[in-house]
């Protein structure tokens, strides 16, 4: 054998080559514990691959595009997706692949296996990477196993693993991974055993589920639990609320199946089996002389130990942040439940809350009542903003889940090809733009109407056009507010200016949906049976996630507009009292001034800007390519909402973040540059819909680029060049 090591050849000093999991399994085997047939692919094979293919430097260049500390989690996810795709599209050198496949064939023949990560340093008492790297269950045949080895290597660079390593101050650049390949034991029941409970050292814990233990590890299947008092050997059984499902091997993976009687009524383990497993974990604790956490399975009455590792939480107390990093990866089941909650519960409640306030006539309120309304509306905004972070943002994982699946199946050259399959959904802000474009089209074809608009006399517009305009105003607001849906000016001047600008130039069409249909078909045809069905469901979920990415902002925008309206009414009353407050005065201060005639909010102090002998100028800025293409034009830097009013056809939109409430200028733009990073952020999504070059995640974009600068957006390489 050229690459694989049998457990018998692994010694206590092999840790740096075989990783924690490989080392522990070798020790279990040496001590006579029942371990399934297992081989280890050492770290040096990862290095061989990464060096021979040039992947090592490509990964480091990707990660070095931006200071890691400055990267938002979404940008880290993007980098991780790109790196994962590098692995997917970089096969092992032919000779290496052949030798490894031959090794695998020799060790396992046609037996199904589990391919697991075993990174050096993981599963130590200091750092537990359990669950952060991938494992693949029920993989068969040399070629498939080699492919999954590459996927396990790739998981070294997942967003969660990157963040966690950063947190532990581990050198990201030195990361490497060994792989453990273990014959699959299709147990009738499986579980985990802790020689000491992480919460109570006097007790041991055993958890068990029917079938494979994927369900237990992922938290999808609720286990039966036994507590064992280590001193008195008193046994307490805690059954789950229901035993309803179990994971079983199925065509190249696993499937969740529902359980029937008698299993639904019986715990998966007999009392004798609980004691048998307890004895194993006690023996393991004695061997390692430290508390152990084991995974086991029972097949035809025989216990097999799948792995053993020290219990992290006892050593590190409560500083382990791993659960948080793990929460970055959400299962399909979890997202489906989240979707139901968002679509069935949260969005209707949000709409109802806005509708209820929409009817309120602010003019009828006393000053005290208006102050109360401001506070109440601010609370509503705060409440829904919190909901936005808690439930809406995580739902973006729907897109990620699909992206990973699509890339695994299609291995596309462009890691973001999957976005094309999501585009074309009826986004609220695109619908708004469509209606604006329809108004502009009428003006473009009618010189008399154009002249009428240019004269500014909008009251004498043809009734049909005026009707459509009022309809637009009532639905979307007058586009002059920094928040959606509001009407901040007396009349539609802002919209008319925009329509004239749009009418003066050819329309900008949205990208054709035909490509999406062809890609979707090609993708689904690659899969068969239940896998195709699952893929279609994940695609549907991702499309909902994509839509929500846009729509939630508009709903939140409505609540913000209601707050703004109440604040505007209060300002008007204060003005009549002779009190002019600066624009940035917080809403709470305005409410207080309204109630208390003697109160004047303190003025905000402006920081002094000292003379700067050194002038910093950008020549070429690095971001992430978020929409392919090349565009040159004058920069229009949006620092305040009012800057949008001057937007001209052919300008390049430069902003902190494209807010859904400002996407109406995007059809005029030649390109988009954003400080906020990510491929799945609103601005990138809209730019892609219009086929515009887009670069996101440019640090200090709005500081280093100035309105009027001639800039080039290189959406292929993620560069912004200042001329």
């Amino acid at each position, binding site marked *: 054998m050229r690459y694989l090591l049998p457990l018998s050849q692994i010694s206590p000093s092999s840790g740096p080559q075989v990783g924690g999991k490989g080392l522990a399994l070798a020790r279990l085997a040496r001590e006579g514990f029942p371990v399934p047939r297992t081989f280890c692919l050492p770290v040096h094979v990862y290095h061989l691959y990464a060096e021979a293919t*040039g992947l*090592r*430097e490509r990964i*480091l*260049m990707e*990660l*070095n*595009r*931006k200071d890691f500390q*400055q990267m*938002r989690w979404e940008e880290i996810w993007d980098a991780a997706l790109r790196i994962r795709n590098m692995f997917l599209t970089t096969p092992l050198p032919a000779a290496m692949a052949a030798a490894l496949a031959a090794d695998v064939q020799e060790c396992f023949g046609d037996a199904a296996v589990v391919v697991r990560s075993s990174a050096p340093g993981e599963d130590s008492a200091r750092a537990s990477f359990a669950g952060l790297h991938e494992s693949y269950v029920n993989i068969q045949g040399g070629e498939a196993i080699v492919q999954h080895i590459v996927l396990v290597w790739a998981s070294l660079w997942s967003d969660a693993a990157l963040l966690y390593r950063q947190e532990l101050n581990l050198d990201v650049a030195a990361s490497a991974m060994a792989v453990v390949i273990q014959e699959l034991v299709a147990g009738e029941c499986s579980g985990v055993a802790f020689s000491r409970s992480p919460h109570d050292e006097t007790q041991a814990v055993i958890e068990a589920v029917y079938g494979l233990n994927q369900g237990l590890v992922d938290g999808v299947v609720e286990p039966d639990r036994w507590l064992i008092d280590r001193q008195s050997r008193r046994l307490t059984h805690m059954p789950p609320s229901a035993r309803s499902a179990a994971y079983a091997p199925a065509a190249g993976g696993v499937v969740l199946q529902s359980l029937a009687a008698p299993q639904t009524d019986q715990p998966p383990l007999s009392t004798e089996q609980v004691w048998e497993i307890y004895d194993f974990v006690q023996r393991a604790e004695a061997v390692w002389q430290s508390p152990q956490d084991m995974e086991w399975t029972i097949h035809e009455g025989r216990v097999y130990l799948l792995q053993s590792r020290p219990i992290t939480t006892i050593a590190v107390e409560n500083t382990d942040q791993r659960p948080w990093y793990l929460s970055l990866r959400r299962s399909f089941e979890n997202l489906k439940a989240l979707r139901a909650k968002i679509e069935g519960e949260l969005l209707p409640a949000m709409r109802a809350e806005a509708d209820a306030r929409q009817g309120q006539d602010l003019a009828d309120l006393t000053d005290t009542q208006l102050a109360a309304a401001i506070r109440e509306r601010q609370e509503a905004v705060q409440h829904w*903003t919190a909901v*936005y*972070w808690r439930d809406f943002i995580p739902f973006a994982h729907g897109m990620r889940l699909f992206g990973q699946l699509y890339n695994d199946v299609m291995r596309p050259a462009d890691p973001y090809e999957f976005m094309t399959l999501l585009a074309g959904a009826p986004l609220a802000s695109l619908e708004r733009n469509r209606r604006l474009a329809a108004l502009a089209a009428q003006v473009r074809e009618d010189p008399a109407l154009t002249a009428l608009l240019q004269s500014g006399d909008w009251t004498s517009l043809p009734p049909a056009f005026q009707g459509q305009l009022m309809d637009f105003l009532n639905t979307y607001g007058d586009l002059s507010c920094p928040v959606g849906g509001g009407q901040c000016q007396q009349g539609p001047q802002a919209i008319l200016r925009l329509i004239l600008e749009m009418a003066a130039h050819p329309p900008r069409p949205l990208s054709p949906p035909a490509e999406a249909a062809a890609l979707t078909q090609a993708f689904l045809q690659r899969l068969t049976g239940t896998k195709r069905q699952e893929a279609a469901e994940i695609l549907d979920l991702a499309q909902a996630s994509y839509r929500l990415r846009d729509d939630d*902002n508009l709903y*939140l*925008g409505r609540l913000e507009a209601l707050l703004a309206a109440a604040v505007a009414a209060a300002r008007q009353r204060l003005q009549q009292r002779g009190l002019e407050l600066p624009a940035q005065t917080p809403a709470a201060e305005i409410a207080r001034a309204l109630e208390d005639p003697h109160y004047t909010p303190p003025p905000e102090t402006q920081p002094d800007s*000292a003379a*700067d*002998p*050194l*002038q*910093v*100028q*950008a*020549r*070429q*800025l*690095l971001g992430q390519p978020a929409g392919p293409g090349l565009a040159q034009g004058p920069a229009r830097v949006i620092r305040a909402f009012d800057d949008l009013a001057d937007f001209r056809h052919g300008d390049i939109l430069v902003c902190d*973040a494209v*807010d*859904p*409430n400002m996407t109406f200028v995007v059809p005029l733009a030649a390109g988009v540059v954003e*400080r*906020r990073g990510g491929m799945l952020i609103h601005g990138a999504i809209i730019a892609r819909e219009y086929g515009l070059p887009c670069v996101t995640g440019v*640090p*200090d974009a709005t*500081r*280093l680029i100035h309105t009027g600068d001639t800039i080039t957006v290189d959406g292929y*390489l993620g*560069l912004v060049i200042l001329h």
Partner: protein
Amino acid sequence: MPSEEISSTASSELPREIKALLASQHLAVLATHHQGQPHASLVAFAASPDGRNLLFATTRTSRKFANLQADPRAALLIDSRGQAAADFHEAMALSAKGPVREVAGTERESLAAVFLAKHPHLREFVGAPSCALLALQVQVYELASRFQQVLMYRFLP
């Protein structure tokens, strides 16, 4: 739309990366020209403490000296490459542009001390009557990092 983190702030001092490059590197590539024909040469350099002057020495008979006599405009490239694959994510390149002048008199003494503190083995060379101590007065630094990011730092007169 809920806002997120705020980007880094500006500073009126030379950035840390530039100071580190000026301190750690010993050799730089000097670009001059002869009637439009570019000429590149390797020189030992040292930066004045404020980073506004880059010092190097050459004999008055050298080609670069003649080129600079004819046209004082020049550029110096200072970089941290290690001639390895890792350069593509690690190395930085700093290009300094400005006019070059020969320093003389008491100024030469103080600047020669700065230069020799970094290159003590060049004492005889710098002390020779045929050797000129030159200073590139930096008007602009261009720093390329992360493979493709380029920022310019311009000294205001």
